[in-house]
């Protein structure tokens, strides 16, 4: 690792290179793409949560002037195949409903017309006859044998089910002094990126090739999935993602079925077709995180040591299951025990289907669901033991000298000092003072509560984790998966300027900026002059199936690939310079964009001339060396291995730490919540750019606050979504976010070139439960049980009322 003192740019508040174009409206998004003869699509969607499609009559719509063609489920069935999915029996999930709809908003047909207006007018003219079927909306009911079955080929609503044991849970439960358990309900909420899904597809019958613009942040597995569904070779489908994506957060993973759908619409109509999802479509039918029911029990010693956990978690991927699900249930395997030394675990995992909208990762990808039960339970354990919730966490933390620490479930935690970060957060808030304030307030009938969550934030998904959905026996029969590779290419032009080609397609994370900072440090040049192109084009980029910006991969594996490529390039420059100066490379020093021989500054050559030689005077290069100047690196993380026969897997390859300490006061009459104090402490290793990190953390906190207090995709018992517009689906705005003290502790990761790791997902994993813990703490004297989100004033008011009735 380079000496941090020697870093001129990494770690500095270097201004984002992306901002100017975005601020003056010069960003390039899919909707900016205009192609010759481009037509527009609108999608007719099911008003029913569960129904047979008896007939679709498109005759009137076809007659509307400007309509160029209509694609129905029948066409989709004939022209494509269901998407593969990593569960034992996948449902027949096509890009459009075929014969049956399974959630409100499911695509039923696509109209292609000269304008979006005409296309929407045509939707009004399509007659779809439905025969409604009984619905199932509740996770637990869906798993019952008598529930209405969504997919006949599966025969039940259970998409995935596994039992897993780590260590010796039964023994630990016997040895425990105390068992504490709870049931926890996590809501279905999502990400609401500013830019909704967007696809432009064009089929060329001459070479049978699709060119598809879309706004998914990486080819990832989705490119292969769509090719398989379309029944075409992968190289016959070129995906291009423009420079800018207006937010992703996981939700955009769900754009892939629409890529297939619009591609088919293009093929059928012979037109280039653009489809921009509108907000209603997005809220109704794009993708959300999973809702989850968890039963969790802790086996505890009287001194507060948590020996073991036993849990049953039920996820809900809605009307179908699609990749990367059932990842929801398995993605956090390696960090299931959070920040604690819990060695024994008994897990039951179930993924079910209901008549709700489908799912995708949602910033934090089910760590918020996981920690909602773990961290609530830790608080409940503390309460039962009469222990302070901060103390019980110190008691169970992994110790600083235990890193790298292998968890019971196979996670390899790279680095951390949880004690230090947590203490810092407690100090900022002045924890003892607020405990006293709380005491005083209680005597006055006021409800003050302090909420804590201390969590481990995984980043860099190891693709292998998905296979834990299969039993070790099933896995042994299939092809193993592993890896978390990312690619970077750096080149130097004949005049000595640097250009970096990345494939991470950021959605606001500022990779262009950070790439420039890192390369500037590595090569000793100015970051302003470095250019970066960072888009996906599957035909002219090199990548692996794991490439893309998800699971906070850039700061770890992305920077590894970048540093690796840059050092290869630097190495080549040294070799050429040494050759030209007739010395050996280790006699050279690179300074002020010049190579010179150690202690002989006059014997030198400018980097620019070295670059020039590589391009202009190719025979002057060392014998056997490739001409030109570029270097690529496609690398994975070393710990990205397949699960072992005991289902242990390093499901992510770096692990940050994050904690929240939040002081709230609840109005005893209206149950509105006021924040008195909030410290959010993070350890994401080396900080690459504090300004970008602050933005990421603030966004993450806000997103978490949404899950805690505001956001939910709510349905009525008939399966209708109650929150399909921004009037009802409430995201916190700047007005709802209180003052927050954000701080950092830097424990560099030994697994990454610069010691950095993911940072943008941590607080959305910790905030929902920290806020819940604060509210639970505030209302503890009343005996209120907090086990669900979002905690609206109306809900809290009812909980208090019920608790008071019980106490009376």
């Amino acid at each position, binding site marked *: 690792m380079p000496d941090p003192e020697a870093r001129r740019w990494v770690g500095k508040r270097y201004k984002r290179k992306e901002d100017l174009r975005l601020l003056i409206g010069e960003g390039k998004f899919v909707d900016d793409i205009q192609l010759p003869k481009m037509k527009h699509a609108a999608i007719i969607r099911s008003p029913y949560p569960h129904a047979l499609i008896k007939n679709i009559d498109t005759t009137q719509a076809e007659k509307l002037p400007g309509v160029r063609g209509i694609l129905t489920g029948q066409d989709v069935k004939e022209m494509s195949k269901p998407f593969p999915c990593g569960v034992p029996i996948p449902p027949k999930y096509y890009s459009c409903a075929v014969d049956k709809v399974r959630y409100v908003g499911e695509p039923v047909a696509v109209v292609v017309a000269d304008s*979006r*207006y005409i296309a*929407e*007018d045509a939707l*009004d003219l399509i007659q779809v006859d439905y025969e409604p079927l009984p619905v199932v909306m509740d996770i637990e009911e869906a798993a019952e044998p008598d529930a209405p079955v969504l997919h006949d080929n599966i025969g039940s609503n259970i998409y995935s089910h596994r039992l897993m044991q780590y260590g010796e849970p039964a023994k630990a439960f016997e040895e425990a002094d105390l068992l504490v358990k709870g049931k926890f309900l996590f809501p279905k909420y999502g990400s609401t990126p500013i830019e909704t899904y967007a696809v432009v597809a064009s089929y060329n019958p001459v070479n049978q090739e699709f060119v598809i613009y879309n706004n998914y942040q990486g080819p990832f597995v989705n490119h292969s999935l769509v090719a398989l569904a379309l029944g075409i070779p992968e190289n016959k489908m070129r995906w291009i993602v423009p420079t800018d994506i207006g937010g992703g957060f996981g939700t955009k993973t769900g754009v892939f079925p629409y890529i297939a759908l619009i591609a088919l619409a293009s093929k059928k109509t012979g037109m280039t077709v653009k489809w921009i999802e*509108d*907000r*209603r479509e997005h809220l109704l039918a794009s993708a959300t995180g999973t809702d989850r029911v968890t039963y969790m029990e802790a086996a505890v010693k009287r001194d507060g040591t948590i020996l073991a956990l036993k849990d049953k978690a039920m996820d809900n991927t809605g009307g179908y299951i699609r990749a990367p699900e059932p990842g929801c249930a398995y993605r956090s395997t390696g960090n299931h025990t959070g920040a604690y030394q819990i060695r024994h675990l008994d897990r039951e995992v179930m993924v079910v289907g209901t008549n709700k909208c489908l799912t995708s990762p949602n910033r934090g990808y089910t760590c918020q669901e996981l920690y909602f039960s773990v961290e609530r339970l830790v608080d409940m354990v503390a309460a039962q033991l009469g222990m302070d919730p901060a103390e019980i966490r110190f008691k169970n933390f992994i110790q600083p000298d235990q890193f790298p620490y292998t968890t019971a479930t196979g996670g390899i935690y790279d680095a951390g000092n949880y004690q230090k970060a947590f203490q810092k957060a407690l100090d900022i808030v002045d924890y003892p003072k607020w405990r006293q304030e709380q005491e005083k307030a209680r005597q006055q009938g006021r409800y003050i509560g302090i909420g804590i969550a201390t969590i481990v934030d995984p980043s860099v998904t190891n693709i292998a984790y998905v296979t834990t959905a299969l039993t070790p026996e099933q896995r042994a029969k299939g092809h193993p998966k592993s890896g978390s590779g990312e690619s970077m290419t750096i080149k130097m032009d004949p005049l000595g300027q640097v250009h970096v080609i990345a494939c991470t397609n950021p959605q606001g994370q500022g990779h262009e900026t950070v790439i420039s900072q890192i390369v500037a440090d590595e090569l000793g040049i100015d970051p302003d002059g470095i250019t970066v192109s960072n888009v996906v084009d599957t035909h002219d980029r090199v990548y692996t199936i794991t490439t893309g910006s998800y699971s906070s991969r850039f700061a770890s594996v992305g920077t590894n690939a970048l540093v690796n490529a840059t050092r290869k390039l630097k190495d080549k420059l040294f070799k050429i310079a040494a050759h030209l100066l007739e010395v050996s490379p280790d006699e050279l020093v690179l300074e002020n964009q010049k190579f010179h021989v150690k202690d002989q500054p006059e014997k030198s050559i400018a980097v620019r001339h070295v670059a020039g030689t590589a391009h202009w005077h190719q025979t002057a290069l060392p014998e056997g060396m490739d001409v030109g100047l570029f270097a690529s690196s496609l690398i994975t993380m070393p710990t990205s291995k397949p699960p072992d026969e005991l289902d242990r897997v390093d499901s992510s390859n770096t692990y940050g730490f994050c904690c929240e300490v939040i002081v709230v006061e609840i109005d005893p*009459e*209206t149950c*509105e919540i006021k924040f008195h104090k909030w410290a959010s402490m993070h350890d994401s290793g080396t900080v690459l750019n504090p300004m970008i990190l602050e933005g990421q953390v603030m966004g993450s906190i806000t997103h978490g606050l949404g899950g805690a207090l*505001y956001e939910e995709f*709510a349905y009525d018992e008939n399966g209708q979504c*109650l*929150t399909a*517009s921004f*009037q*009802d689906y*409430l995201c*916190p*705005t700047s*007005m*709802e976010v209180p003052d927050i003290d954000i701080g950092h502790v830097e424990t560099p990761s030994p697994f990454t070139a610069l010691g950095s790791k993911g940072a943008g997902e941590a607080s959305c994993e910790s905030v929902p439960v920290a806020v819940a813990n604060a509210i639970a703490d505030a209302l503890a004297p009343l005996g209120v049980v907090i086990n669900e989100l979002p905690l*609206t*004033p*109306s809900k809290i*008011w*009812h909980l208090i009322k019920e608790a008071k009735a019980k106490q009376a």
Partner: protein
Amino acid sequence: MKPAAFDYIAPKTVEEVISLLTTHEDEAKILAGGQSLMPIMNFRLGRPGLLIDINGLDELDYIKQQDDHLLIGGLTRERTVERSPLVRDLCPLLSQAISFVGHTAIRNRGTVGGSLVHADPSGEIPTAFCALDGRVKAVGPDGERWIDPGEFFLTFLTTSLEPTELLVEVKVPVLPQGTGWSFMELSRRVGDFAIIGVATLLFMNGDGTCREARIALGGVAPTPFRAEEAEEVLAGQAIGEELISRAGELAGEAADAEDDYHASAEYRQEMAKIMVSRSLRQALARTGKGN
């Protein structure tokens, strides 16, 4: 989310508008700030055949004092009224109420007339309008008429305005010096429609007793309404905590709230009591100033 096809016309005078309304009746819709109408059309919940854009009717954009009343043109923007020194001085309840409407950008476009005609039961302007016992002036083919709040608001999103009528003016009283006033609301987020909004006014006697109390509630019934029984217990009294709670209780009982996703009927009903009491306390604290 594109509206169905419609015709569009932008007349310049009230007469033109009335003549267009008379010709097209139910087919036509007035477009003012568009902050309610455009979403309705984009969701295709409304499909007017003709939009009559009144944004060019400068004659309907004014705020002026006439004796002990303020006259506000039907097209005056919410933000203009909110920031008007005249309104802040003479009818601060209205400025305060408007400050709770959506966000600045919405208030920059939305009009006072549009908000009243849209008649959302939790709308702040309709609620304040009830407490102020204001009047709207409607002009139609048969001339003009004045309508009071009780007559104007019929039920959810429905008023007694005829399809051929245009709301041209809103009249609210100048509040006498020393009048106590308050607008309070509960909403999920800043700028959201109110779960409950409460407007109160306390007109005082020289001896410090309350001459007349006005309590209007929004969001807890199909229209905003006055809690008359609650008002009555305060009239003629020296107001103290006990009367305030009593009034709160009565106002809460008068509410006829419904469940929705954001809050239960029971919660809303209970909040009616609490918010009325709080609002009365604030109004009381403001009485007498400048007397």
